């Protein structure tokens, strides 16, 4: 067990395929560019082959020279062809092991294994590719070693209590194919046109055909235009409607395809270690999020899906792993399904007892006035400069903006209770944020000149891995809020955060404080 091991030999083959893939484009570019006259096809072929051969060789040597060793207390990886690197990561520093299976390695039953240490700058240890069984074995091993160490150190009772019996926890949330289809329809996207545009651009660069040339398009348009003009007005209208429906259909199909690719077989399970999420049709990912690393929750929704009662839940987690992986744990669910996940993460959803505070009315009035004034100026300008009647458009917009601002105010609110802070905003698709008071890092009260004049402020709460702000809070309220939050966080040091007892335990100690706050 303790001797150095290599990754799976097929990794070399996969690396070689990667090298060939990256050699294809330059080869094509040469073939179609005009370098080397008539022989350029051969030049291109030669360059492509050479690139592929060199890539394969480098991959092979790299594979030969990379070994990993599972030690008693750490995992060591030695790598490097010319300059050798040996990296050692102690088991107790490994937060978790995530496993990713991209389509090609998946064909060979291989996975990429990443040891997440929570180190900044993406300096996580990764091994690609190992057999799926080996990956799973490593994950189990790391957990076991960690637990052994935790058990050996009696100072840490929290982790010792959490020795996993096995990895199959309760399924908290799963996307059935039917649900996935509904989800896909709401993920309406016209990104496919952007991709097509990009491809055209690319083809324009590589192939001699001049797609950017206006004349080509104008000829085509005139040709088509004359055909269209020869049809009657009803047929034209029908064609326009058909085109619109076509667009919608394309958008929906894109949405469904993208969603199915990303979220096929989405399963969220709660094991003793934390939350485990598996998803993906071609690229299968398997991520574990320890409960104590969840800093906050975001419950989002969409313009349309909100009307049907659909919401999405994601975790706010430490900053370093926020960049590559989203922490969506229930992308498409009813609130009733979200509630148990929230509870499992140690949070509480706001209920009837939550004392919501609206943003200050002065904030609302100022915003309304500001937006209306912008359109008002536009109205005056158009009334003077543009043909008569056109000024009605910005005037209408001004009236509309007043209505929107007044309505949006109903949704801009915040609350604080014994253990958590809440904020929500957005009137067409309200987004709600929940964070633990304990896990905040700083409080800032910001005021622009107008806000100072009118006595309100924006409160920014420092949240690891996310942003948390409450807008338009009256100054007294902001100060009371800050005092209450700081009182909570000053009590516990950062290093104890992970072991901090569950939120409920604080309710008793902090209730006096928060009732003070609510009284203000």
């Amino acid at each position, binding site marked *: 067990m303790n001797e150095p091991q290599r990754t799976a030999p097929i990794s070399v083959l996969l690396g070689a395929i990667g090298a060939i893939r990256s050699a294809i484009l330059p080869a094509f570019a040469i073939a179609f560019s005009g370098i080397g006259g008539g022989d350029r096809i051969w030049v291109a072929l030669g360059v492509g082959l050479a690139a592929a051969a060199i890539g394969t060789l480098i991959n092979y040597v790299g594979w030969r020279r990379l070994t990993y060793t599972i030690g008693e207390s750490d995992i060591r990886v030695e790598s490097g062809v010319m300059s050798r690197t040996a990296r050692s990561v102690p088991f107790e520093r490994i937060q978790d092991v995530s496993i990713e299976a991209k389509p090609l390695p998946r064909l060979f039953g291989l996975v990429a294994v990443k040891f997440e240490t929570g180190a900044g700058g993406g300096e996580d240890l990764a091994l690609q590719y190992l057999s799926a069984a080996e990956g799973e074995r490593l994950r189990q091993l790391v957990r076991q070693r960690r637990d052994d160490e935790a058990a050996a150190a009696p100072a840490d009772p929290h982790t010792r209590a959490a020795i996993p019996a096995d990895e199959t926890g309760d399924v908290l949330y799963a996307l059935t194919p039917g649900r996935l289809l509904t989800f896909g329809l709401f993920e309406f996207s016209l990104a496919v046109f952007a991709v097509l545009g990009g491809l055209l651009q690319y083809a324009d660069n590589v192939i001699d055909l001049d797609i950017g040339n206006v004349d080509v398009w104008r000829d085509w348009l005139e040709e088509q235009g004359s055909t269209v003009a020869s049809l009657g007005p009803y047929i034209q209208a029908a064609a326009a409607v058909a085109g619109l429906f076509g667009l919608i259909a394309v958008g929906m199909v894109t949405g469904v395809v993208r969603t199915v690719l990303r979220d096929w077989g989405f399963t969220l399970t709660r094991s003793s270690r934390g939350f485990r999420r598996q998803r993906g049709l071609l690229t299968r990912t398997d991520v574990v999020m320890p409960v104590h690393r969840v800093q906050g929750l975001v419950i989002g929704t969409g313009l349309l899906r909100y009307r049907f009662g659909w919401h999405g839940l994601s975790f706010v987690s430490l900053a370093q792993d926020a960049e590559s992986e989203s922490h969506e744990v229930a992308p498409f669910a009813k609130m009733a399904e979200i509630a148990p996940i929230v509870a499992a993460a140690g949070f509480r959803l706001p209920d009837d007892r939550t004392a919501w505070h609206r943003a200050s009315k002065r904030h609302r009035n100022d915003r309304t006035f500001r937006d209306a004034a912008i359109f008002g100026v536009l109205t005056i300008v158009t009334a003077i400069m543009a043909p008569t009647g056109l000024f009605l458009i910005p005037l209408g917009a001004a009236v509309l903006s007043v209505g929107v601002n007044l309505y949006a105010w109903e949704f801009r609110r915040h609350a604080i209770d014994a253990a958590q802070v809440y904020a929500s905003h957005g009137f067409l698709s309200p987004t709600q944020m929940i964070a633990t008071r304990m896990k905040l890092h700083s409080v800032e009260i910001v005021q622009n000149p107008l806000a100072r004049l009118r006595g309100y402020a924006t409160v920014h709460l420092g949240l690891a891995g996310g*942003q948390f702000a409450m807008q338009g809070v009256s100054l007294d309220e902001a100060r009371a809020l800050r*005092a209450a939050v700081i009182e909570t*966080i000053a009590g516990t040091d950062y290093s104890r955060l992970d072991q901090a007892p569950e939120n409920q335990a604080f309710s008793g100690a902090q209730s006096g404080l928060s009732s003070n706050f609510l009284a203000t």
Partner: protein
Amino acid sequence: MDEHGEQPDVRGGLNPKLQGGDDQALQQGHPNHPKAMRVQALLMAFPALLGAIAAEYATPFWPFAILGPVALILAVLVIFLPHRRYAARGHALSDDRLRVVRGLLFRSDTVVPFGRVQHIDVAQGPLERFFGIATLTVHTAGNHNASVALPGLGELLAREMRETIRAHIRRETV
């Protein structure tokens, strides 16, 4: 702040204009801070002034059409602004938290509890070293306010404050 009482020369006094509503009385920075800001503004103003002089000669407008306004703006930036900015700044160090207030137009008022400080920097540029002042920066794990800088402290005071915060962190962790 009693424990720092024996070195009154390295800190400014209380800032009476800034005692806005909160429990913690705000301290002003080192008196040399506005001077340092002024020198810095002067250094920044110099290239702008040269540019304005060049533009003045190059363009056919009447005399001082460009140089006049530019010089006026720069004069405000160099002469008036440093003191105003200094007066708008304040900080307070209590048993378990650091409060930093700054901003002339856009006010910001930040509180960082010591328990959430990841690490602490004391930095001195050449100008700051000349004026005997330093910048204390505390880093937190939050995305917002990942680092809170407190410039214009007396050099000694900045180190003292760093020790205070560090001692607190060590006490909490052990």
